[in-house]
């Protein structure tokens, strides 16, 4: 089977947005190109699969009669400023950015695929193969894994990494990325797209000299590997990481240079001290499993993760002591300090 099957053609439209926003969405769709899981096209009518709506329009459409609703596109609310995201519904927050739109479209693809799977499953005879089972075009972490493998080779030679329209230069042994100008969000969205082909080739001396003469500056590649893990699918571990394994950190990530969320700090503290399974880490850090997957994947691509097979005798639950009479060592001290200095958890 061809690993990269044909993409679904899906339509997107806008309802109730102003002309400027509509133009911005169509521009961003062009920027994203084929960096999404399915092929998205802008439509001017309500035959589209999804519609970006104002929050009010989304509510109004949801109230339509069921027979009317079945013919309307799925509404994705556009949220502004302090508007809250409705629970369990994908949403796009203004101002619009290519990266966020790409993630949203992939999320919607997953939802629509699930809907298609359910529809096929209800019409197929038992045991009959589902048509959607053959749809496996989505290759997650393609770019991150290619980059990680290149770094593993530890070559001292300069390599050209071509991913879609984005070109990077890498010295694997130095874990260095050479850029003539910073990577913007759009380029990053293309590079991290799950469908974009990655081509790598070793550069010869003359090409290397030309690149150095052009003023390309080396920087650590870890931030890019980190982003490839963090911005990848959040419903699975990287290929090669065991679903039922326990994970520990070899050392702390350099949060001074890596994009981070506050919740990453506690997860890092737990994993540097003790190996945890995904579920145990989610429980101990009170974070959603999706965030745990993203964090472990980012650490793994940066070669910070050690995998240990889960041992039943060592199965631990770091939250089980909550009902004991143990008095917390620091009480609410850290919360007081955070509050006084206005940082961290609220």
């Amino acid at each position, binding site marked *: 089977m061809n690993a990269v099957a044909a993409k679904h053609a899906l339509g997107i439209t806008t309802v109730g947005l102003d002309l400027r926003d509509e133009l911005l969405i169509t521009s961003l769709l062009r920027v994203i190109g084929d960096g999404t899981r399915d092929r998205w096209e802008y439509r001017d009518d309500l035959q589209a699969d999804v519609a970006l709506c104002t929050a009010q329009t989304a509510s109004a459409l949801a109230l339509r009669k069921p027979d009317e609703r079945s013919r309307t596109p799925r509404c994705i609310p556009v949220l502004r400023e302090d508007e809250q995201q409705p629970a369990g519904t994908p949403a796009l927050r203004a101002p619009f950015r290519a990266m966020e739109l790409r993630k949203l479209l992939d999320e919607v693809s997953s939802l629509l695929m699930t809907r298609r799977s359910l529809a096929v499953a209800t019409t197929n005879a038992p045991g009959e193969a589902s048509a959607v089972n053959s749809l496996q075009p989505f290759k997650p972490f393609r770019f991150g894994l290619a980059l990680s493998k290149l770094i593993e080779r530890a070559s001292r030679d300069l390599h050209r990494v071509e991913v879609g329209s984005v070109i990077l230069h890498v010295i694997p042994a130095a874990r260095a990325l050479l850029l003539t100008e910073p990577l913007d969000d759009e380029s990053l969205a293309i590079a991290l797209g799950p469908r974009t082909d990655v081509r790598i080739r070793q550069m010869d001396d003359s090409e290397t000299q030309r690149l150095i003469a052009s003023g390309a500056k080396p920087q650590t590649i870890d931030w890019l590997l980190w982003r490839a893990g963090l911005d990848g699918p959040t419903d699975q571990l990287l290929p090669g990481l065991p679903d039922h394994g326990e994970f520990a950190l070899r050392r*702390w990530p350099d*949060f001074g240079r890596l994009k981070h969320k506050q919740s990453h700090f506690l997860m890092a503290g737990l994993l540097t001290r*003790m190996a945890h399974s995904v579920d145990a880490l989610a429980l101990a850090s009170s974070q959603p499993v999706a965030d745990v997957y993203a964090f472990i994947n980012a650490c793994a691509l940066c070669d910070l993760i050690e995998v240990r097979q889960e041992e039943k005798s060592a199965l631990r639950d*770091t939250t089980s*002591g909550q009902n*004991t009479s143990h008095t*917390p*060592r620091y009480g609410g001290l850290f919360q*007081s300090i955070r509050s006084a200095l206005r940082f961290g958890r609220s």
Partner: protein
Amino acid sequence: MSPKEYKLIFAGSMGAGKTTAIAAISEIAPVRTDVENTDRANHQKATTTAAMDYGEVTLPGGDKLRLYGTPGQTRFDFMWKILGNGALGVIILVDNSRPDPLADLRGYLQAFHEIAQDSRAVIGIGRGESHPSPTLDAFHALTREIGICAPILSVDVRRREDVLLLLDILFNQMEAAELIDRPGSGARPQ
């Protein structure tokens, strides 16, 4: 009930930014004891901290977080342990432009070994952009050799958010240790 006091230590070599870091978060103008630097062979600063820096933060309820910066010169190293007694944690700042930043860190980790082993230390490496060597890998190798797994971050303590990042990570590390080590958790550190 009388207000409680907590002590946070900023340690590091001369010029590593201890005074700057304290000034970034203290609610009072830091009390500084700078004198003329007589150690120009090791650092070109005109003045340096001869005894210590001091700053403070008032916490909700009137408790105080007292911030102490250790003197940078090694001839004052007898002060480091005195200051470390009863400290909540220690923030070690390393200036990567110094002749031997690894030796600097080793000295501070030895002085604050007990605190660092108790997961109450965080290390900030400054001037790494202009002086990339030694790398963070080398600093991690050193801490491993000493038997410590402390967070090590690239920072610029002239930025307040970098100082707060160091504090946040220090506290999260301590909270993680408490979660794992508390009685009844059944957990055992690796």
